[in-house]
C-alpha cells in the first residue's frame, strides 16, 4: 500500500539561507505541546533551545513566511509542507492553493516562490522562509481581478474551480516570462496542472486572451 505521507527524502542541502534559518530556530518541546501551540499560542511554555548544526529538528518551530506581501508568523513542524502551513497553520488561513494529490503531480497547490511557480506540497514550510510567496490570492480579488483571472471568468476556464487557483497561478507566472505565447506553449506551460471537469480548452483560450490583453 502506498502511504502518501512518507517522509519526503531530502538530500543534504547547504543552502546558506536555510542554514542561517535553522541556526535561529529552537527545538520546541515535542509533540504534546504542539496542541497548545496551535490552539493558544500565548500559552506556549516550551523553551527554545539553539539548534546544533547537522542535528535534525524535531518538535515544532516558529517561522515567518512572506505571503502575498505580508509577514506571517506560524508554528510548524519541520516536516510541514508549505501547502499545509498555508492552509492549516497560518491564522487566518490561505486556502487558495488546494491540496489534491499531495505528491507533486496535479498542480492545484501551485504558488510562486520568488516569482517561480512551485508545487507547495513539495516545499517544506521551513524552506520557504525568506522567500517571497505569492498565492492566487495575491494576484487579485473577486472584486478586482487580474487580467488572467478576468480572462478565466470571461472564457469560462473553470467549472468546479478546484484546480483553478493552480492554473491561474501557473499561467500568471508563465505570461510574465512569455508575453506572446503560442497555443502549444500554453499547453506546455500547464502540463503540470490537472483538471477533471475538462476545462483545458478554455484555460488555453483564457491564457491566450490574457496575453493578448496584456499586449494591448
Amino acid at each position, binding site marked *: 500500500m502506498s502511504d502518501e505521507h512518507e517522509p519526503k527524502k531530502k538530500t543534504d542541502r547547504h543552502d546558506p539561507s536555510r542554514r542561517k534559518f535553522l541556526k535561529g530556530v529552537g527545538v520546541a518541546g515535542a509533540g504534546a505541546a504542539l496542541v497548545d501551540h496551535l490552539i493558544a499560542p500565548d500559552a506556549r511554555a516550551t523553551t527554545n533551545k539553539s539548534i546544533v548544526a547537522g542535528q535534525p529538528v524535531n518538535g515544532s518551530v516558529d517561522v515567518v513566511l512572506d505571503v502575498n506581501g505580508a509577514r506571517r508568523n506560524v508554528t510548524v513542524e519541520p516536516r510541514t509542507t508549505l501547502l499545509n502551513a498555508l492552509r492549516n497553520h497560518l491564522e487566518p488561513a490561505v486556502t487558495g492553493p488546494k491540496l489534491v494529490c499531495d505528491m507533486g503531480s496535479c498542480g492545484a497547490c501551485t504558488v510562486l516562490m520568488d516569482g517561480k511557480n512551485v508545487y507547495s506540497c513539495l516545499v517544506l514550510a521551513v524552506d520557504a522562509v525568506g522567500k517571497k510567496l505569492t498565492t492566487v490570492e495575491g494576484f487579485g480579488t473577486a472584486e478586482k481581478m487580474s487580467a488572467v483571472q478576468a480572462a478565466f471568468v470571461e472564457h469560462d476556464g473553470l467549472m468546479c474551480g478546484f484546480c483553478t487557483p493552480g492554473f491561474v497561478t501557473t499561467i500568471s507566472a508563465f505570461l510574465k516570462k512569455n508575453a506572446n505565447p503560442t497555443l502549444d506553449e500554453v499547453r506546455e506551460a500547464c502540463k503540470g496542472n490537472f483538471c*477533471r471537469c475538462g476545462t483545458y480548452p478554455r484555460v488555453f483560450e483564457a491564457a491566450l486572451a490574457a496575453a493578448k490583453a496584456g499586449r494591448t
Partner: protein
Amino acid sequence: MPQQPQAQPSPTPPKKKKIRVPRVVNGIEQMVEIEVDDVAGPGWGPHDKHTLLNHRITRVDGPLKVSGAAKYTYDVRLPNMLYGRVRRCPHAHAKIKKFDSSAAMRMPGVKAIIQGPLTELRFAGAPVAAVAATTPELAQDAARAIVVEYEVLPHVVTPDAAIKPNAPRVLPEPQPAPATGSPTPGTGGEDNLAAKGKQGDPQKVAAAFANCDAVVEAEYRTPRLHHCCLETHGMVVDFSGGETATIYATTQGTFTIPQDAARELGLQQSAVTATVQHMGGGFGSKFGIGIEGLLACRLSKETKSPVKLMLTRSDEFLMTGNRSGSWQKLKGGAKKDGTFVALQATQYRLGGVGQGSQAGQPYSVYRAGDFYREVYALHTNEDSAIAMRAPGHPQTSFAMESLLDELAYKIGMDPVAFRKKNMPDAMYHRQLDRAAREINWAKRNATPGGGSGPLKRGMGCAAGTWGGGGNDQCKVDVTVTRDGAVTVAVGTQDLGTGTRTFTRAIVAEELGLGIKDVVEQIGNSKLGGANSSGGSTTAASLSPSVKDAAYKARMELAAKFSPLLGNAKPEEIVFANGNVTAGGKSIAWKQACAALPPAGIVAHGVWRSDLQSRGVHGVVFAEVEVDVETGKVRPLKMLQVQDGGLPLNRLTMESQINGGMIQGLGMALFETRVMDADLGIQLNPSFMDYKLPGSLEMPEMIPLIDDEDKREVVIGIAEAAIIPAIGAIANAVFNACGARIRDLPITPDKVLMALATERRSA
C-alpha cells in the same frame, strides 16, 4: 403582516395528472410516478426570444473561484478543530484478528481513535479505523501506529479468475433464515457470478443470424475507472457536544446529509444543518455521508470537538467507489443493405463487491431486429462500483458502437449511413449529418491503415442518449424587498455545473433585470429541499420551479406597481432593462420597489412538468493520429453535437460538453485501475500513476449546441456529454490504422499488439 391577501372564494382544486419522473438514489436514476397539478402557467417561449437565457453568461461564482476566495469544504477551518485520518486494510480479503490502538492513543496530539464498523474486509483499502488529532500530520502518524493484525483470506481481483468455478468467494455465503432454511434476502450473499436478467428469444436470434450477410463476434472490455474528484471525499463536522451540528460536506446531495449525520451524532435530524457552498467535483460519487462521514461524525461525537476528515488521494482511489467495469461478449449480424438484424449479448457488470452497472444491449440509440441478452454481475475483491457520470452507459455504448463499426466496415458501408439505417429517432440523423459536415467526414481515411508513413489519421463517430428529466423536489422562493433587492433561495447545490448562474438568469430575465441584480442562496439544507444532483436531473428539476416562482413574483409585483403606472392592467406591465413600463409611463426598478409593503413580496415556485422534459441525444465525431511504429494515439479533434431543449446558458453548456468529451477521451485512451492479481491491491492509486487526460493530450475541442432542437423545455445534458466520446475515439483509431482495439484504454501496447495480429491474419 400589514397587507394580508384578501379572502378569496375557495378556488376549484387544480386538476391533477400523473407523470413518470426520475428519482436519483445514490446517483442511479429510477423512474417513479408522481401526481402534479395539471395547470397552464408561464412558458419559456421560443429560444430566440430570450434576453439572458440561451445567451453566454459568465458564471456568477467565477470571480470567487479564480481569486481563491471560494470556500470549499476542504477549506473550512474551525476553532479547536481536529483532523481525522483513516487507516485502511492492506489486504484484498481479511479478517481483523487483533486491533490495538493503545500506543497510537498515547501519541502527542491524538484525541480519539475509533474502529470501523467492519471486521471482515473484502477489498484492499477498506477502512478499519479512524483517528482524530490536532494536526493532519499527527493524525497520519497515529493512523499508522495502530496495530492491526489480520487473518488473510483468499481473494480474487480479476474477472477472468473470478468467473472460474473454484474461485475464492467474494461475498459472504447466504445466511439461511431460521424458519424456512432458504437464503435470507438482503444478505448480499451470492456467487461471484450472479444472473441479473435476460431478455429476448434466443431461438429467434439464432434464426435471424442465418439470414445475415455479415456477422461479427467479439468481446469488449472496459476497465474500472475512478472519479478523481479533485476535492476528495470528506466533511467537517461542527459539533461540540451540544444540541445542534453543522456539517460542511462536499456533496452532490445536501439533503442526504442531515439524516445520516444526525443518526451518528445522536441528534434530531432537524438539529443538523448541511452546507456546501462550492464543491470540487463529484461525478456521481458524492451522495450521503459515506463511510468517511460516518467516521468523522463518530470522532466528533467522541471528542466533543469539530472534526475535519478529508480523505487522502490514495484513500480516494481505494475506498470511495469507482466506475463499473464491463466485459461484453457480443455477436451481431447485418444485411448488405445495412440493416442490423440480430444481436446476441452476454454482459458482465464488474462492480467489485457491488452490483456494478451496465445498460442493456442493444444500446437504446439503435434498433436490432432480434436480440437476446443475458446480464450478470461478476464480483471481485475490489471496492464497490458506484454511480459515475452516466452510470452504465459508456460501457454499453462503447461496445455497441464498436460492433456497429465493425459490421459497417464488413459490409463496406459508410459507418454514418449504417448507423442512420438503424436509428429510429430522426434527431440523430440530423446531428450525424451536421457533425459529419463540420469535421469533413467525407475526407476521412478511405482505407483503414492505408497510406504511406507511420502516422495514420482516421475519424470515427458514435451516438449517445440520456434522460435528463426533472422532478418536483426543489423548493424555490423568490423574494423582492423594498430596496429592490431580489433573492432566489433554492434547495439544491452547485457542483460547478453553473446552477447558480442559470438560477439567477431565469429570475433576472423574468423581472427585466441584470444578472448582478439577483442574488441566490444555495447549498444549505435549511433552504427547504431538493433532489440530489445526479442523473443530470438538477437543471430540469430546479429551473421550472425557479421560472414559476419568478413568474409569480412578476405577477404579484405587477399588481403592486399598477397604481404607479396609471392603474395599468398587471398583465400589460412590461419588466425590461431595469424598468417597469406601461401606458407610456416608465419607472426605474428600485423606485417601483419602494412602493412595496415593508416585508416585500415572496413568491413560491411550484415545479412545472411542462417546462422540462427528458430524452437527449448527442453525437461525437473524433479524429486521431496513430503512430503505427510506437502505437501512440494522438487525439486531434473532437466534435460533439448535443441537444438539450432550451440552453439555459450556452457558455456553461458548452463547457459541460467539453468536459464530457474530455472524460470520454480519458476512458478511451488513458484511464484504468491496475490490479495486482497476486497481492490483490491496486497498483496505481495516485495521480502519479493513474493517467488522466492532460493539457498535452487535448485535441481541438468543438462543442456544438444543436439549435435545431426547438423544444421549449429544459433537459439535463451532463451525462449525455460523456457517452459517445469513447466509441468515437475507438472507431477513429480503427479508421486510422486498421486495427480494432476492443479493450479499453487504447494504450500503445494494445495498438501494437492489434496491428501485429492484423498483419499475421492478413
